């Protein structure tokens, strides 16, 4: 993990973490955002929104992105300044654009509700901007949150 903080009138924090393609790595994701949130004086709500958005995308990538298995690393980079946070997620997984997924029908009854499909929907609700790019080796998602 790399962390760089500039103190002063404008507090900017740049931090990066690499996570292996295992769901147990989500514990490290939580610790990562707990640390940044504490240092940058984020509200609990802001930390929750950022952590949840990243978890949803990481869980998808870890669960579905590597049908051949093997060990892979996913890089998560945060650039936070007062009022504005940008997160970049980069992987070497199979091509997957979450923005092309159908939205779940959240009005259906318990019997009719499909299991799953909510994760991306949450990210869209919580972030102000989501950009998907296919890279030479995988996928890059950029999330922007204004607060």
């Amino acid at each position: 993990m790399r962390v760089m903080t500039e103190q002063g009138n404008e507090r900017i924090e740049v931090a990066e973490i690499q996570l292996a393609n295992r769901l147990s790595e989500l514990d490290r994701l939580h610790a990562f955002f707990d640390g940044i949130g504490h240092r940058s004086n984020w509200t609990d709500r802001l930390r929750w929104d950022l952590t949840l958005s990243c978890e949803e995308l990481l869980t998808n990538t870890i669960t579905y992105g590597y049908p051949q298995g093997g060990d892979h690393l996913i890089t998560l980079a945060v650039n936070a300044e007062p009022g504005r946070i940008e997160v970049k997620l980069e992987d070497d997984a199979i091509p997957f654009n979450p923005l092309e997924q159908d939205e779940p029908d959240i009005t259906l009854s318990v019997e009719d509700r499909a299991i799953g499909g909510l994760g991306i929907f949450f990210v869209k609700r919580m972030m102000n901007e989501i950009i998907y790019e296919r890279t030479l080796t995988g996928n890059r998602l950029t999330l922007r949150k204004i607060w």
Partner: protein
Amino acid sequence: MNIVTAQRDGATVMSIEGRLDGHHAQEAEAAFMALTGEGHTRFVFDFTQMQYISSAGLRVVLVAAKKVRTLQGRLVCANMSDQVRDVFEMSGFLSILETAASTDEALNLLKA
């Protein structure tokens, strides 16, 4: 995540503590399914000590709600924090699941 199970007033109170996320969801689902396998059908999910829930956690709650319907049982979710409640609201689950402000209220609902 930690799960504490207790029997109260003929219902099973499952306290899900900590983070119900993509890492722990399967374990929680297995714990619930084991209880239904033992014949339990009336549940309170107590979220007092829940720090965090994601869609993987909501999935477990939906699986449980579907399961109790097939067993003609019931499930009430109790003691949600504001942030947990917001995630349920965002997913539309608040309008399809039974919820209660406290465990006592949940147990009263189950008696009705």
